[in-house]
């Protein structure tokens, strides 16, 4: 199936186009950027017109929006949440603090770059990004999904050891997320790449 996916048959193209128009965003306020999400969701900016709507459970969600800094305590919950989500899934890093720590670059409590712990599809720079920036990034995400280019989620399966090593480094020991990532990998027939 993976060969067919890379070739993008007409059926895949239709599928990608459709899945890009019906995205569910996990409603998890991980940091202060969550304050700009209600304006984006509600009357004034209304992201529902692009087919994006908040979803309260991880298993039904497509987008994990990391709204700002992640403390180590939250990172553990975010990893649990991320692994529960069904592929394909996309992580959007929101705000400068997900890129390189932002203004918390010297804080002992927050992790500095999100892509060490999970594959990130898009970053939105700024502290904090405006609702227009969120909407523009979602449009970009929809376009990429439609073109079949939004494949960052495969990276988690390909380089699982790399991500798990970084996660365990932060938590100071092995963690049990209760999700069998390796069998998911077989389901999607993804080969290890090694990073």
């Amino acid at each position, binding site marked *: 199936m993976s060969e067919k996916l890379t070739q993008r048959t007409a059926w895949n193209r239709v599928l990608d186009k459709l899945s890009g128009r019906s995205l569910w965003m996990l409603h998890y306020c991980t940091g202060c950027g969550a304050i700009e999400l209600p304006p984006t969701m509600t009357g004034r900016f209304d992201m529902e017109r692009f087919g994006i709507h908040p979803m309260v459970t991880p298993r039904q969600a497509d987008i994990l929006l990391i709204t700002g800094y992640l403390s*180590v*305590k939250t990172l*553990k919950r975010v990893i649990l949440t991320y692994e529960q989500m069904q592929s394909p899934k996309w992580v959007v890093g929101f705000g400068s603090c997900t*890129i*390189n*720590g932002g203004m918390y*670059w*010297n*804080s*002992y*409590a927050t*992790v*500095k*770059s999100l892509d*060490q712990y999970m594959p990130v599809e898009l970053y939105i720079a700024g502290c904090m990004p405006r609702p227009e920036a969120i909407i523009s990034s979602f449009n970009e995400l929809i376009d990429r999904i439609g073109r079949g280019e939004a494949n960052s989620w495969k990276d988690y399966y390909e380089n699982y050891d790399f991500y798990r090593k*970084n996660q365990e*480094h*932060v*938590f*100071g020991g092995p963690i049990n997320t209760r999700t069998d990532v390796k069998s998911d990998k077989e389901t999607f027939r993804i080969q290890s790449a090694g990073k």
Partner: protein
Amino acid sequence: MTNEQDIINRIEAAYPDAVCKKKQERRVEACLPPDRLFDFAGRMQSHWNFPHLSAISCVDWINEGEFELVYHFWSYEEKILVSAKIRIPREEARFISITELWQPAKFFERDIHEMFGVVFEGNDDLEKYILTEWEGPPPMRKDFVTRDFANRFYHFKEYEAEWMGPQQNPQAADVQGGSNE
């Protein structure tokens, strides 16, 4: 309606070893010996009509080897805030809890225990609240430098654009070898 000087006179009459002064409008500072604080706090609440404990702050005076605990009491009627300051030794810091008198003190003391490592005797709930994933020293102590810790422990973003060619980054090797301490 009493003013700041009345409060100071009242405290100094009851506690001759206290050093009081008016800091600014509606702010009175009282420096006390540590063993008088519990008695002082009880008197503030029951006799002197200061029913609101605004906060307990802790300051780490590392050069003097002392922790300073500052209790902020507010009176709704007198409209004056009294800050009672005591100093305790920094090594194996212990102090008596005032949770019997003020229930909000429970969280303030728990927070100070977590951030500074001061043990409050009589507070039954001193387990970790914020730093449950943290194994290092209490982070608010002055001898803990957060910048060094972050440099050592977290992965910084390394910019490796192709056009820049292979990079020799000494810090990158350090990050890889970072330990959990």
